[in-house]
């Protein structure tokens, strides 16, 4: 037929090389043709395009397929034949326009044709080893193959075939003793092809293996498969016209997905009607799986989704969950096998369960994200914000529901697989809603959730709150532990990192400081966090701040100061905590927005500042008293505190304190004079402490700390004026127990902060007057130096013993070299 014509024509008209290629091609392309034809259900026009294409390749015309058409029309030998067919084909297209089904077919066909053409081209070029052209063709091919998803079909078998052919060509080319040298651009192209093919082969390894095993059968497999759905389709549509109608609409909508100038709201209307019509679970699920994403698409460009639209989406997802919960023999999973035709119901597996491709997880995630972006858009101090916030509970309910659903279809062993990934995502979102809450609130929301859900539902990962089970903090600890444990098992490190940070945040926020601290230390996140993505960094900062505040509440002042230091003194505080953007940034990029957290999740910055400066005061003031000479200061523990204090001291008038910071600075001044009563009064009158839920206890703790630090300051400043100090006297001055005074003083002696000794029978602290003159500056520096050197030596020692592994080779070579040098001498 036409093929015969073409080839003969080619062989007549082309050079020797081309002759070879085309005759070879005759063999190979006839194969491919068989594949094409069958896969396209043998439409005649297809064949013609093919031949047309062949001709082009023979003449070495390099352009894309549209041009090929043109060229083919003008120059091709089968010009007439083709035109007839083409016009005929076009007619049939226009004829069938009224029938939407036809349209779908031809779009898909066109796509497959395109691929077939490209594959042929590549095949041809690979014969002549024209690598430069192969590169461009292969690029096009890969691009169009990626589109295969749009047509709801699998990766075309032809593509697999071309991969195999290319791989062969490359290997044979390399095996050959290359006589003709490639010029630079050619060899470059060759390399590019090599790499791309390698990569593609990796992706489709199993298919390629199949093809290699038996190319013929593989291709014929392609011809068999599309036919079966046709049969079922017809038989089904005969028995169930309602379903056919639904799928006609669904198809036409799928067809337009991602295209411009499509009226999405009209489509939504159509689909909503369908939800009323559809009766069979398979139909309903299919409709919902399409409807919800379109709802989201409608507002993808807007800043947020309007409230009622959001509610519709929520309702639809819930409806979908209803269907799925009622019909346990249908499963929606991301890992289900993709189908060529949406109309075919997937085969039931051994348990009679049919798997549909789709993702509840991403729908729920999207819904939650839309809520967040809406919250971000609303003024947080308005009533609207509060009322919108109420929707959080319905999202949370949905999340729990989705989690329970996934738990029912995913077994414990599958957690680390892509299937388990969906469950992990849902759990991560769920954690996202509870990790920043106090345990009482978590219990409250758990209660509402399980009340709303059906009674028979329960989560195997962590059972719902019952009377007999653990209560209070114990329950929430268990809940967070169980949820995080699932995430820890994930192969994806982002899940694990996020989970551990949520975990730390939760424990820190709920006053379980040591647990949180150990987790942070064991996670080793500090070392790598600066390379993580911004969202994770923000979460890390938040956890760190909570940890610091938690330490502060426990009275661990040093630790609190250390963890809060970096964030509290940063000028970009808000940005670091995801609570605002930098002022000078004019345009917010999408990434910047993602970093932001809605207002109700914010850490109170004033509280943070207050805790930090109070902690700094407690550590810094005694130090200042100890070394009044600033030049001799050992380490500036907190420069920012000192700066603020100095600024305060420069003020001519001391007004009554207004801001938190004023209170603290005045308290610091009082503390410097060892006036703990005034300091404690000032600190305790700071109102913001009331934000901590046990503020009275914290105030009492602060007072005791102030007393002790005042005692220390007193000793430092007055050391030189006394020879003896009665412990009981000190105890009355600072209203501390003698026991505490004694241990504080002894500690100072032991740390060589003061030169004194304790006289136990007389209960007196005897300050030793140093009889020798104080060390000169030089001597002191020398002492310091020796101390520092000592530290270096010790550190090196530790390194050499274990931590640092000198490469073994060098270790072995080294003595030899030493020998060599020595003998030369």
């Amino acid at each position, binding site marked *: 037929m036409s093929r015969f014509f073409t080839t003969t024509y080619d062989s007549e008209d082309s050079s020797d090389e081309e002759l070879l290629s085309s005759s070879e091609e005759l063999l190979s392309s006839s194969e491919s043709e068989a594949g094409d034809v069958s896969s396209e259900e043998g439409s005649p026009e297809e064949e013609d395009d093919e031949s047309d294409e062949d001709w082009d390749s023979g003449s070495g015309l390099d352009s894309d397929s549209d041009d090929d058409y043109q060229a083919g029309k003008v120059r091709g030998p089968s010009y007439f034949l083709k035109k007839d067919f083409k016009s005929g084909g076009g007619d049939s297209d226009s004829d069938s326009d009224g029938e939407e089904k036809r349209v779908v077919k031809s779009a898909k066909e066109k796509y497959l044709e395109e691929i077939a053409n490209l594959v042929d081209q590549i095949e041809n070029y690979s014969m002549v080893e024209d690598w430069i052209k192969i590169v461009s063709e292969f690029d096009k091919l890969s691009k169009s193959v990626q589109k295969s998803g749009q047509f709801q079909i699998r990766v075309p078998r032809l593509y697999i075939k071309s991969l195999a052919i290319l791989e062969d060509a490359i290997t044979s080319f390399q095996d050959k003793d290359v006589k003709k040298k490639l010029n630079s651009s050619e060899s470059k192209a060759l390399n590019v092809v090599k790499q791309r093919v390698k990569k593609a082969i990796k992706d489709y390894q199993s298919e390629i293996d199949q093809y290699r095993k038996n190319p013929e059968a593989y291709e014929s497999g392609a011809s068999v498969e599309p036919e079966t759905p046709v049969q079922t389709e017809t038989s089904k549509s005969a028995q169930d016209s309602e379903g056919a109608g639904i799928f006609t609409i669904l198809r036409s909508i799928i067809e337009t997905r991602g295209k411009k100038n499509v009226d999405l709201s009209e489509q939504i209307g159509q689909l909503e009607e369908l939800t009323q019509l559809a009766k069979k679970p398979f139909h309903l699920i299919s409709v919902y799986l399409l409807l919800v994403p379109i709802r989201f698409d409608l507002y993808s460009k807007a800043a947020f989704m309007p409230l009622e639209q959001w509610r519709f989406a929520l309702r639809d997802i819930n409806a979908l969950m209803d269907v799925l919960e009622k019909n346990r023999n249908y499963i929606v999973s991301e890992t289900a096998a993709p189908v060529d035709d949406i109309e075919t119901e997937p085969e039931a597996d051994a348990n009679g369960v049919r798997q549909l491709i789709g993702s509840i997880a991403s729908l729920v995630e999207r819904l939650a994200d839309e809520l967040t972006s809406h919250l971000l858009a609303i003024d947080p101090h308005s009533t609207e914000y509060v009322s919108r916030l109420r929707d959080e509970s319905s999202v949370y309910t949905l999340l729990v529901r989705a989690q329970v659903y996934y738990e029912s279809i995913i077994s414990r062993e599958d957690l680390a697989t892509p299937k388990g990934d969906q469950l992990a995502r849902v759990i991560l979102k769920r954690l996202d809603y509870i990790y920043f809450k106090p345990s009482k609130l978590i219990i409250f929301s758990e209660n509402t959730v399980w009340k709303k859900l059906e009674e028979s539902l329960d989560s195997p990962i962590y059972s719902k709150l019952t009377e007999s089970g653990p209560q209070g903090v114990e329950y929430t600890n268990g809940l967070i532990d169980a949820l995080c444990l699932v995430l820890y098992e994930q192969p994806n490190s982002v899940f694990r990192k996020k989970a551990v940070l949520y975990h730390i945040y939760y424990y820190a926020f709920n006053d379980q400081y*040591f647990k949180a601290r*150990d987790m942070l230390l*064991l996670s080793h996140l500090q070392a790598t966090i600066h390379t993580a993505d911004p969202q994770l960094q923000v979460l890390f900062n938040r956890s760190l701040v909570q940890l610091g505040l938690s330490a502060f509440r426990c009275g661990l002042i040093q630790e609190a100061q250390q963890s809060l230091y970096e964030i509290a003194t940063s000028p970009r505080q808000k940005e670091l905590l995801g609570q605002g953007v930098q002022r000078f940034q004019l345009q917010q990029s999408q990434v910047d927005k993602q970093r932001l957290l809605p207002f109700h999740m914010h850490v109170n910055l004033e509280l943070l500042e207050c805790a930090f400066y109070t902690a700094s005061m407690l550590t810094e003031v005694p130090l200042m008293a100890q070394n009044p000479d600033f030049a001799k200061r050992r380490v500036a523990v907190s420069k920012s505190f000192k700066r603020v204090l100095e600024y305060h001291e420069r003020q001519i008038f001391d007004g009554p304190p207004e801001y938190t910071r004023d209170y603290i600075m005045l308290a610091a001044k009082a503390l410097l004079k060892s006036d703990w009563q005034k300091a404690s009064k000032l600190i305790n009158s700071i109102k913001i402490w009331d934000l901590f839920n046990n503020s009275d206890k914290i105030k009492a703790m602060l007072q005791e700390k102030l007393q002790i630090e005042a005692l220390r300051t007193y000793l430092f400043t007055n050391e030189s004026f006394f020879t003896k100090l009665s412990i009981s006297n000190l105890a009355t001055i600072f209203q501390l127990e003698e*026991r505490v005074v*004694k*241990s504080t003083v*002894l*500690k100072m*002696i*032991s740390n060589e902060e003061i030169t004194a*000794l*304790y*006289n*136990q*029978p*007389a209960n007196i602290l*005897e300050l*030793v007057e140093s009889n*020798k003159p104080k*060390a000169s500056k030089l*001597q*002191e520096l*020398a*002492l310091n130096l*020796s*101390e520092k*050197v*000592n530290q270096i*030596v010790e550190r*090196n*020692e530790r*390194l*050499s*013993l*274990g*931590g*640092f592994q*000198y490469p073994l080779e*060098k*270790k*072995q070579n*080294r*003595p030899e070299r*030493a*020998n060599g040098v*020595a*003998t030369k*001498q």
Partner: protein
Amino acid sequence: MTEQTTQQPKLTAEQIEIAQKYDLTPKFIQFLDRHLIYPLVENLDSIYTSKEVESMEYDLLKETYMTKFIKEKFDHLYPGKELPAEFIEKEKAIEQEFNELDKATSKTLEILASKDVQESLKQDKTYNREYLSKNHQIDDAKILELYKFGKFQYNRGDYVVASDLLNNFRLLSVNQDLNLSATWGKISSEIITESWSDALEELNKLREIIDNRHFKGTTLDQLNKRTWLIHFSLFIFFNSENGLESLVDLFFSSSYLSTIQASCPWILRYLIVAVISSKPQLRQKRLRDLIRAVQIEDYEYQDPFTNLIQILYVNYELDRLPAVMKQVKVVSDVDFFISHLNTAELYKNAQGLVLETVGKLYKVVSTEQLKEFINDESLELTSTKENFDVQGDKVLISSAESGSVYQQVYEKTKAFNFKTNQLLNNAFGINSHNHKQPTQEA
């Protein structure tokens, strides 16, 4: 072991309470083998009634195959009662299994023990396997029987035979997992039969596997194995010569210290004991690491020993010392491991630490108070420290003069040269031997 416990004087009610409070046996149970727990439980007879101890022993061992022993215990506990029926069945089953395994392995063992086989075996495992399977039909199944029988014998309480069998198995098997488990079995057998040097060898083998950089299991698995290893090692370290030194080295190595902190903080007690018993010149440096470790774990684990360290080096609440010292004494007498040591010596060392701290901080202290601190009425104070000067009911302490600045700098830096050389040796393997040799040649 039993001798010591019987020798112990009766404890007062108060002391028993202390001992019970700080008894670590429940914590140890999850990290030791049944057979190894037995001596620990046996040791509890000073603080619990013998009836309680016996019932614990019965519960502990009723799952093992030591039928005779279980019978005895049962008779003691429930005199006049019949043995449960399932027990008799089990006894029969054990008997049968024993006969089967015995028959199956006797041939193999005979071959292995025969002289010409012994001579023809080499270092090479693959060669040995080939040789045995070719000439004596000892294949993998036969070798596996050795493992099974070894495990069985261990379960029956015949540790010497078990250790032998497991050793034979290990020499021939190439199954890594079973080899590891055979090593665990062997170390337990060696510990129970008190052959400490063999046990130490096994311990090192285990360490090699667990600490291997390419350890096959998960990190959690590694952590668990280390925890087990730590608990097993206590038996060995507290019984062999210089064991405490090795204990300090092992437990202070970073991976084991973090294991202790992560999963078994109570081991700190033994670390503290080991540090206290170590030589004075080593003690200072070790104390620093120890104090840090104790401080970190303070919120999670406290016992008399950690309290002692806290008081002496962290919070200086010396008023609490008398009570803590009393507890230290009781615990060191009762604790299974510590009581193996020379407790008097240990206690003296602890007192030494107290005196050291007192000497550093006090100028004058009453004799009475000092005696309370160290919980020792009869102490001859004059002999304790050279800078303690007893005058009537007071002790004057002359503080150590800190020398001139020059002296101080000298003191601090004088060891540097030596240390640096040592450092080079450690890091680059240039030892003095290598340095000298060529020069001699030249």
